[in-house]
Every structure is written in C-alpha cells, then in structure tokens.
C-alpha cells in the first residue's frame, strides 16, 4: 500500500518559473490537503479539497492553485515561483467521514526558489 505519493521529492527552481507538485493517493479518501512547512511556523494550510470537483482556500493560498479532477490526484501549481515559496510542501488526505480529522501525509516535496 503506497498511501500518498508526492513528486518531486526535491526541486530547485528559478524565480518566475512555473512548477507543479504532484500528489496521488490510493486510499480512495475524499478529502485532500496541501500544507507548507516552514521553520518556526509549523504547518500552514494552502488549499484543500473535500471531494473531487471542489477546492477551497486555506490560510496561505496566494500564489498557489489546485485542481481536483478525480479522487486520487491533487496537484499544486505555482504559476510564477518566488523565493518566499521556498519551503517543504506536504500533501495529506483523510477519509472525510465524521470529520475526525485524521490525516495521512506524504513524505514531502522540498522546493527551493532562487
């Protein structure tokens, strides 16, 4: 069982370039999330999707977009990367039943914007 797969695991990117972080889950979970983790700031929610076809904004959505065309995939796109988007990005999913909130996380994607 793979759980959640994120790609790439690490990437160095020039400012102004477009970048898509991929996230795929095989647990048939309804809800998926993107968080960024920064030292001293913990995890902050970027975007989420409660079910396929719907998305919502989290705490820090600016500069990011997401789509949820199907249950399994939830890509995160940086249209024009800036250095402040240097971070570790985690994708997560939950079954969404009863809102018990248990999340399953991917291994993370470390992004450096120069």
């Amino acid at each position, binding site marked *: 069982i793979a759980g*959640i797969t994120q790609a790439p695991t690490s990437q160095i990117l020039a400012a102004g370039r477009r970048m898509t972080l991929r996230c795929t889950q095989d647990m048939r979970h309804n*809800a998926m*999330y993107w*968080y960024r983790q920064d030292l*001293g*700031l*913990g*995890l*902050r*929610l970027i975007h*989420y999707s*409660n079910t396929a076809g719907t998305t*919502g904004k*989290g705490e820090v959505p600016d500069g990011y977009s997401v789509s949820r065309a199907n249950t399994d995939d939830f890509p995160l796109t940086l249209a024009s990367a800036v250095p402040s988007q240097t971070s570790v990005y*985690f994708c*997560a999913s939950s079954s969404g039943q009863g*809102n*018990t*909130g*248990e*999340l399953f*996380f*991917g*291994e*993370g994607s470390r992004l450096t914007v120069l």
Partner: protein
Amino acid sequence: AQSVTQLDSQVPVFEEAPVELRCNYSSSVSVYLFWYVQYPNQGLQLLLKYLSGSTLVKGINGFEAEFNKSQTSFHLRKPSVHISDTAEYFCAVIPNQAGTALIFGKGTTLSVSS
C-alpha cells in the same frame, strides 16, 4: 476562528526522563484534538487523538495526552523517553464542523540525549 499554541519550541531531555509537551487551543465551538509526530525527513504521523469520552487518551509509543476543557489544554506526556523519541511534535485542532481542516501549532522539537 481556532488557534493552537505550543508553549515550548524546544524541549531537551535526558533518556528515561519524563517529558510533557504543552498545547493550548482556542475555539468558539467544540473541537477535536490531535498530536502528530514528525521524524527527520519524513511526513507527519498520528500519535493520538481526542474526539470524545475519556479525557485521558493513549497513543502509540507510550505517549498519552489529557484533554482539559476548562484550561483549553491538551498536553502530551511520556513517563520515560527514549533516544528514538527525538522528533518534532505538532498539536492540532479541528472544529466539530463539516468541511473544515486541521489547524496546526508551530511545533515542539523534542531532543532526547543519553
């Protein structure tokens, strides 16, 4: 709105000593509470959660936490830590409402030395 405050950013302890990682939250509605652990270069995994019922909840690896509604706290404890418990620990809260996402504290780094 909900918020989570982890009162200590770093907690250094010696092996076999007890440890308490403190977490306070604020919310105008009832919430579910969680502790997640992140080992170096990995994603987060669930340690334990409080949904309802007994205020003392037990999790994996010998950790436990006590929900105190009057003090709005959810402190994590372990009576005797091991070197392998060295990790980042995150307290998280989610409102008892459909369609919401976990809100994380900024994390506490537990460093266990011999």
